[in-house]
Structure formats: structure tokens, C-alpha cells
């Protein structure tokens, strides 16, 4: 069965620190990969997505993610986080049928 794992349950950073959130999936076929963000009290919003082409994908708010096919990974990065980035981040995989979400990583950015 398709599954998605995220390396960290909770990450705490200071403002201006660099961020990398890990995501690995298990599915041998072609997948589309996504990162969603959920700010406190709000709904899921799409940060970025990968379908094909350049494995380095740029999203909104300065986020980017790199698809490494050989590692089944799609890690999210941001060079300098802000307090407003405090949220829950979900990696998701779509094999054309439905989405499978990772368990989420809570990011807390300290001012």
C-alpha cells in the first residue's frame, strides 16, 4: 500500500534559520507530489507540487522542494524562516487515484 512518512513530528526553529522537512513515500509507479500547509485554525493550502520536469520545484512564500526519485523523497526547504511560517506541513502523494497524506510536521518558529 502506498504510504508517506515525514521525518519529524515537531520542528522548532528561530527566525532566519534554514528549514528542511523530510518526506519519503513508498510507491513504485509515477506519482505526483505535493506539500500542503495548514496555518493554525485554517484549512489546507497548496505550497507547491511536482508532476514532472525539473526536480527542484519552487512554491509560494519562498518554499522549494526537491524530488529525488532514487530516494523516493520530496523534501521541503526554505533558506530563512519567519515567525509567520509557524504551521503544520503535510507532504502528500497522488498516484492518480487519491491522495495519501503524511502524518504532518509541526513547525514552530520562535521570534
Amino acid at each position, binding site marked *: 500500500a502506498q504510504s508517506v512518512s515525514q521525518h519529524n513530528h515537531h520542528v522548532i526553529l528561530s527566525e532566519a534559520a534554514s528549514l528542511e522537512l523530510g518526506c519519503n513515500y513508498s510507491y513504485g509507479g509515477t506519482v*505526483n507530489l*505535493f506539500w*500542503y500547509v495548514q496555518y493554525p485554525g*485554517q*484549512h*489546507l*493550502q*497548496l505550497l507547491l*507540487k511536482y*508532476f514532472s520536469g525539473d526536480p527542484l520545484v519552487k512554491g509560494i512564500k519562498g518554499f522549494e522542494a526537491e524530488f529525488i526519485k532514487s530516494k523516493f523523497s520530496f523534501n521541503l526547504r526554505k533558506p530563512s524562516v519567519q515567525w509567520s511560517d509557524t504551521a503544520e506541513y*503535510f507532504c*502528500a502523494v*497522488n498516484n*492518480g*487515484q*487519491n*491522495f*495519501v*497524506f*503524511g*502524518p*504532518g510536521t509541526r513547525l514552530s518558529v520562535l521570534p
Partner: protein
Amino acid sequence: EPEVTQTPSHQVTQMGQEVILRCVPISNHLYFYWYRQILGQKVEFLVSFYNNEISEKSEIFDDQFSVERPDGSNFTLKIRSTKLEDSAMYFCASRLTSGGATDTQYFGPGTRLTVL
């Protein structure tokens, strides 16, 4: 920008009662989904719906759940006899096509269901 809307934003109900959660997908989208997120846990797929029928459902989506598209705009999730463990945030999502470059699900704001 078009968006998925959901009503109500918060529903409180007694155990054993029926609830209907409502969603209005983006108007030209063809695929519809329900997900739930129990507090502190990950988002879980419940059901997908296309062409007026369920195309896929998870183990969570048992006989107490049903979905319907009663008219051209609404997409509803009914829980027939709620249980305490049904308390969660329920997200509706819609998608234009089945795959390719437009394969992005757009999520609604969610309905928080509290079962007492």
C-alpha cells in the same frame, strides 16, 4: 480565484444523531473528495466521487457514511449515527480532471464536527 466552500464551519451534535456536512466544490470541477483529520493526527482519505457515484472509498467510510451530489453545486457527506470518534475536521476537496497538469485538489476550509 474560485474556491471550495463548506458549511457549517462548526457542527456540534449528540452521539447517535445524524449530521450532514455540506460542500460547494469549484464550479467546473468533476472529481470530489472528503477527508477527515482527527485532532493531532494526519489527514485521512474518506471517499472520492465522480460522475454521480463513488469511485473509491477507504476503510473508514463504512455504512454509516454516505455522499451525495443532490444538485449541480452541492456535495454532501452524511453521517447517519454519529459516534464520539467521528469528532474531527472534515475537509472537502475538488479537482478538475483525473490527472496531468491540472491534477491539483483544492481544499475547502473544513467543518469541525464535535460529537458529544
